[in-house]
C-alpha cells in the first residue's frame, strides 16, 4: 500500500534576504501560520512546480511536513521549527520582528 500523504507546506528561502518563506494562498509569506496547508498530493506537486519556477525571487523550494493544530500548520521536525522561528541563542530572525508582511 502506498504511504498516505501527510499535510505539507511549500517552503523556500527568499533570494534577497535569504530568510525562510512559505507559500500562502496569495503569494509568499514569512509566517508559517499563514502558509497554505496542502493535503492533496497532486495539488502539492503542482504548487511545488509553480513555486520552483519563481527562480528570480526564491531559492531552494521544497515541501515540508506539518501538523495542523486548531487549523494552523505547525512544524513536525525540529529543523522546521528552527526555520519557522529563528536561532535559539539570540532573539534573531523571525522572533526578532514578528512580521506578517508579504514578499
Amino acid at each position, binding site marked *: 500500500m502506498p504511504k498516505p500523504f501527510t499535510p505539507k507546506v511549500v517552503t523556500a528561502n527568499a*533570494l534577497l534576504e*535569504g530568510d525562510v518563506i512559505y507559500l500562502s494562498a496569495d503569494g509568499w509569506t514569512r509566517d508559517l501560520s499563514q502558509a497554505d496547508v496542502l493535503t492533496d498530493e497532486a495539488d502539492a506537486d503542482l504548487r511545488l512546480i509553480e513555486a520552483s519556477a519563481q*527562480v528570480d525571487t526564491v531559492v*531552494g523550494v521544497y515541501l515540508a511536513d506539518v501538523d495542523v493544530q486548531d487549523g494552523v500548520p505547525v512544524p*513536525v521536525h525540529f529543523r522546521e521549527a*528552527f526555520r519557522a522561528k529563528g*536561532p*535559539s541563542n539570540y532573539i534573531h530572525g*523571525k522572533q526578532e520582528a514578528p512580521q506578517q508582511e508579504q514578499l
Partner: protein
Amino acid sequence: MYHYTDFDDAFLKERNAQFRAQVERRIDGSLTEDEFKPLRLMNGLYLQLHAYMLRVAIPYGTLNSRQMEKLADIADRWDKGYGHFTTRQNIQYNWPELRDVPDMLDALAEVNMHAIQTSGNTIRNVTADHFAGAAADEVADPRPVAELIRQWSTDHPEFQFLPRKFKVAVTGAAADRAVIKAHDIGLQIVEKDGTLGFKVIVGGGLGRTPMIGKVLYEFVSQEDLLPTLEAIVSVYNLLGRRDNKYKARIKITVHENGIEDIRARVDSRYKLIREQFTGIDQQMLARIEADFATPTFVKSDVTPYHSTYQHDPLFRSWADTNIAAHKNPDYAIVSISLKAHGKTPGDATSRQMRLMAQLAKRYGHDELRISHEQNVILPHVHKGDLPSVYYALKAEGLGTANIGLISDIIACPGMDYCALATARSIPIAQEIATHFDALKLEHEVGPLKIKISGCINACGHHHVGHIGILGLDRAGVENYQITLGGDGTEDAQIGERAGPGFSADEIIPAVERIVMAYLDLRDSPAETFLNTYRRLGLAPFKAALYPEAAANAA
C-alpha cells in the same frame, strides 16, 4: 604583518567588481541560482538556514587593529552587530543580505581582507599557530611561509577544482597549537644541522572518516617547500576520488593507496616540476619575512603586574589561565576568552571587537590573532600593562578566566544557523558552561577540552576533544553522542565513542558524570583529565556514563 602590493590591491578590486556584476545579474534574473551558486561560493557566500552567511578569511589568524575595527564596522552596518570566529581562523557573518555583499567585500578590501577561497574545492585559508611570532617555545615564526603558501595557492589555476576542499596548517613550534595532524597537509618548522626546514604531514582530517595525518617527509628544505606542496596537491588532484564526495579528501587517497605509494608519486611529480621553481619564491619569502619582523620590545617596569597579581585574586585567576609564555620574559601572550559563561562560543560583538582593537593598538604592538579555539589573542603585551588590559577587558565582558578549562568550548554553529546540521551545538555549550560555573568546579577540574559539532562534518573538532560531543538526529529528536580521549595536539588522537547517545536533557548530566568520575579517579590534582583517561582507558568512564548498564553487568 604582510603589506599588500599594488598588484594585490588591483587583484581584489577587480575580483570584487566582477562579483558585484554577478550579484546584479542574479538579482535581475539573468543568472539562475544554479549558475550563481558556484560564483557566490567562490566569494565565501553561503545560503544557510535563516539567511546568507559570509565567511571572511583571516589568513593564519593574524589581524591588525584597523582590520579588527573594519570587521566591527561591517557587523554594525550590514549584519546584526556581531561576528562568529571559527576553528579555521575565519569570521562568519550570519545575517547579510545578498544586495549588500559586494559592499561588504569592498569594505574588507579597504583593509586588505577578502573572502576568496573560503569555500569551494580549493586550497582554503592557511591556518597557523595563534601564538606565532611570540611563543617562547617556537623554532621560527610560521606566518611568512603561511603567507607564501597563501600567495601560491590563491587563484592557482591548477587547483581551483580539486576533488574536495584542501586545508593546510603550519606551526613553528613542537607543541602543536594548530592541529596540524588533522589537516590535509600539516607543516612543522624544524631545525636540522642549524638550518630550518619542514616536517610534512599529509592525510589528516576530521569529518565522516576522521584520520590522523602521516609523515610524508621528515625534512624538506625551505627552497623545496613550494615544489613539494605543488607535487602533493597535483598528485591528489589526479588521484583523489571524484566519484564520491565523502571519499574525495586526501586522507582517503592516502589511506587507499598507502603512504609509500603517495610518496613515490609525489617524488616523481616533484622531479618533473622542480625546475619551474627558479627561486623567485625564495625572493618573495625574503620580502614577506621582512614584513613579519619582530616588534621592538620596550624595557619597562613589570611591578604593576606582580603587585596586582598579589592583591587581586580575580586578576590572579585570569593571569593563571589566560596568559602564556612569551619569548621575551618581560612580555606575555594574552588569550582573550570569547567563551563567557552562557554566551555563544566564538561570538564577539562589534563593541568587543573595537575594544580588542584598541587594546592591541595601545598595549599590543597593533597585533591580534584569532585562535582555532575561537578565542582572540594579543600576542605581545608587556607584563606591566597586563592589569590595564585585564580591567578593560573585564568591563566589556571579555575577562573570563577560562582558557583551556571546561567552559572554553569549541562549538560549531549547529542547527541554529547551519543548513547541514542535524542538531544544535550552541545551547549545549552554553548549558555546560553555566552548569560548571554554578558548581564552581571549573578550576578544580583544570585543563579539559570539550568540543561540539552539530553534524558529522566535524567543524567543531569533536573528534579531537578530550570530551567530544556530536549532535545527531534520531527519529526527529536531537541526540548527542560522546567521544572520549581525543587530542588535537602533537600527540593527536581520535576520541573513542563511549556508547549510545543522550537526549538534550540528558547530555549535561552525562558530562557531569564523566567529570565527577575523573575527579574520583585521578591520582592527584596534577593529573589532567586526558592523562587519567590515557592511564585508565575508556572502561571506568563508560561505567560512569552508563551506570545502569554497569549495574546490570555486575
